């Protein structure tokens, strides 16, 4: 199994510098997801790894082999890199049937006819398209085309599978199903997967390790999904991995107050010094109840979203979001109405410097 190592990678289009000195390591046999906002250079990175673009500087290694090196001008062509790839726009060939699409890498690899048919059928079955082998792509839905692309990328058992937002165009159910499917396949075949997306849910769900990139293409943090979710290195990562609330907390005469200077902060203590801090938390980390201990707030809006009730709560002049499991809320009679006073307790919080408050507003 081949890992990927990227060292000091740089790529620019004209004077638009997409990547400047990127380092990244993907451990063999793992599923690595790269999460970043739209336009941060995820597709460009994939194309560099696949060999469709030449690096300006830096090196790319697949396994032990240097496939691209800006200094020595090494550039291994895409067909010799031993990769499988699923493109953002599927790139299923419209003039070939499902079977021919999936079988193509084997044909190019001169696999014997019997084995070719067998492996193609297996791959088609793996992605749940059995029975549709004779169809042309124009007779398939977007989701089915995407699965053809996935089967085509898997059929040659590549050492490295590059997936560029392959689940973008699927409906929610199918997306969930496919994401487990990809994960299961990756574990069963033991291949290395590099998966780029801007959807944090998918990223967290399937990654063994992951990295978050900012809009300028700089990786902010890498680690396991749990690490990034639980201990984000900065507010960018925190914001990117889910809905983020921030409240300003000040030290006034040794006690902690909110932005209005009066309301006392009632939650975990700060982990850092400073007179102005920001406390961040997710809607699910807030427990909103009628009366009792905690931060006082007023419910401005309550939306029933099925599994959850979503509240907008005004606390000391700032509006935050809180989510409550609706089943529990119903059982315990804690469903709050709009305009009602409430108390907020916190299951967990992250502390940041107060600067992040302005960044969020901007």
């Amino acid at each position: 199994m081949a890992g990927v190592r990227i060292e000091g990678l740089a790529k620019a289009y004209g004077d638009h510098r997409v990547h400047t000195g990127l380092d990244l390591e993907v451990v063999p046999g793992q599923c690595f997801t790269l999460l970043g906002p739209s336009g941060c250079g995820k597709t460009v990175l994939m194309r560099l790894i696949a060999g469709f673009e030449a690096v300006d500087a830096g090196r790319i290694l697949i396994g032990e082999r240097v496939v691209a090196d800006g200094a020595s001008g090494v550039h291994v062509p895409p067909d010799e890199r031993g990769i499988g790839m699923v493109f953002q726009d599927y790139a299923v060939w419209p003039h070939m049937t499902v079977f021919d699409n999936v079988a193509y890498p084997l044909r190019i690899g001169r696999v014997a006819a019997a084995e070719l048919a067998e492996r193609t059928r297996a791959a088609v079955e793996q992605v749940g398209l059995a029975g549709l082998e004779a169809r042309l792509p124009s007779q398939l839905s977007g989701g089915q085309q995407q699965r053809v692309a996935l089967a085509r990328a898997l059929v040659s058992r590549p050492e490295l599978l590059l997936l560029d937002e392959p689940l973008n165009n699927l409906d929610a159910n199918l997306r969930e199903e496919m994401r487990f499917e990809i994960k299961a396949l990756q574990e069963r075949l033991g291949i290395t997967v590099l998966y780029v997306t801007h959807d944090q849910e998918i990223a967290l769900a399937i990654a063994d390790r992951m990295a978050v990139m900012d809009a300028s293409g700089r990786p902010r943090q890498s680690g396991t999904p749990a690490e990034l979710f639980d201990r984000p290195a900065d507010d960018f990562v925190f914001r990117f991995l889910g809905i983020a609330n921030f409240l300003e907390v000040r030290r006034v005469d040794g006690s902690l107050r909110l932005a209005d200077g009066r309301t006392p902060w009632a939650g975990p203590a700060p982990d850092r010094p400073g007179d102005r801090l920001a406390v961040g938390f997710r809607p699910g980390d807030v427990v909103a109840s009628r009366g009792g201990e905690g931060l006082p707030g007023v419910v401005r809006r309550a939306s029933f979203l099925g599994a959850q009730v979503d509240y907008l709560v005004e606390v000391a002049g700032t509006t935050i979001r809180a989510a409550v499991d609706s089943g529990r809320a119903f059982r315990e009679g804690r469903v709050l109405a709009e305009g009602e006073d409430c108390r907020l307790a916190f299951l967990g919080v992250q502390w940041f410097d107060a600067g992040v408050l302005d960044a969020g507003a901007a």
Partner: protein
Amino acid sequence: MSAAAPRFGTAQVLFGLAVGILVIFVAVPVLLIFFNAFWVNGAFNVADVLKVLRQKDTYEALLNSLVLASGVTVTGTIVGTFFAWLVTRTDLPFKGAMKVLFLVPFMLPSFIGALAWKMLLSPRSGYINRFFQEVLGFDGPVFDIYTYGGIIGVETMYLFPFVFIQVCGALERMDPTLEESARISGADLFTITRRITIPLVLPSILSGALLIMLYSMAHFGTVAVLGIEAGIYNIPTLIYEKIHQSAGSFDSIRTGTVLATVLVVTAAFILWLQNRVLSRGRYQIIAGKSFRPTELKLRGLRYPLLAFCLAYIAFTIVLPTVTIFLVGGLKTYGLPLAAENFTWGNYRHILFEWQLTRDAIWNSITLGLAAALITMFAGVIISYVIVKMKVRGKGILEFLGMLPFSVPGSVIALGVILAWSGKFGVNLYNTVWIILVAYIARYMAFSLKANSAALEQVHDSLVEAARASGATMWQALRDVVVPLVRPGMLAAFFLIFLPALRELTVSVLLYGPTSRTIGVAIYTLNEDGETVYSAALAGIALVIIVTGEVVIKRFFKTASGS
């Protein structure tokens, strides 16, 4: 597809090939024309060019080209717009069939039409004139086709479809809400047509009109058949005269190159204008989907207008065609069109006995096939590099790729004479090869257009997906690009093969004793007074052309239907 490595690879080979083809076949001939026009005795010389332009026959030819082209543009635009409106926006009976009939002139060569009209309306021997004199008792000839009006009339019959097609397309795709909203605000149909419809369709009308202008400026056949007798020369016919009469003397070549330069510049200007008109007009009218437009009720005029359309078609298509076949069957030209004067002998002679015409038919078919095949493949390669590849220096290629569109046939022919007559080591003069070389340049634009349109549809990632599947660049081209572009290539093939079959403008400047094409044979036979043979060969050409068109339409229909 990116040329990933800065090495010498497939990308560079394709790029080199593309540039090479365009330079050798298109750029060099055109540059040689400019060079010969402006470079005298080792020095750049504009005064001399002006002197050539001031010669009587030169500026008269320029003026004639302008007058004829303007006349044809005006009449063709009126006729084309009127019929387009009739078949899209009124309740004329049999609109579908009428629309097809109005496109028929497009596939008929206009110089054959000119021949037919000469047989009908020439002052001395035209059948219609004779009918008026002998039967109706007129004193002298009533019509004279050897005039500006005659030339403009005949060209109009064959060129109005340029406007017709464009306007039909625009009227059919025009967003109905634009007109409906005017309706709702109380405007009547006349006001809507004048205030909304015409302004919206104007870009298409103009663009079609400019195509007529471009074509007419550079058109040889009709003017050669009808004008020379009365001393009316336009630019292409004067170039022909200069090259043929003086057998390539330096002065006549000079004059030819100066005229050709004027033609290129004018053509480039017209194309530039057309581009501007289109880019300004395109975006607003077209809603993309076809719809049923509001139709004007013709009421009592329905059948009179249908009769008018049918009469127009009978007069402009049926009458000349029938004339050609009848005259082709006459024992001697000038005999009355009576049963005892007809024979199959002319047709038999042309098809089976006479070496000259058999050569011509063979030459046209083989030249058409060869030019179509070569240009089709060259066009794919060039379009591929222009549309798909990111290589350094692509700007040059894009410029070179524009060139074939603005180089008229007689310019190509003259340039090819300058380049391939032995001055640069290769002498193809008087062989079919020189015509082939010229055809490749002449028809490159068609191929580039069809192939780039097809290639635009092939998204880069389809090729990259093949590369990621382990295919080399060549394998990806073979398995993905070529199959997807095949319809475009086929279209290019037929777009070249059919016009090449009936081509005259280029080959008339390049033919030698054994390298006549069908067009040249018809033209020269007519010049030599062999009118019946000329007509018979024209009839055979019409049969070949129409059969070709029909077979190909069928073929494309079944191909796209399955």
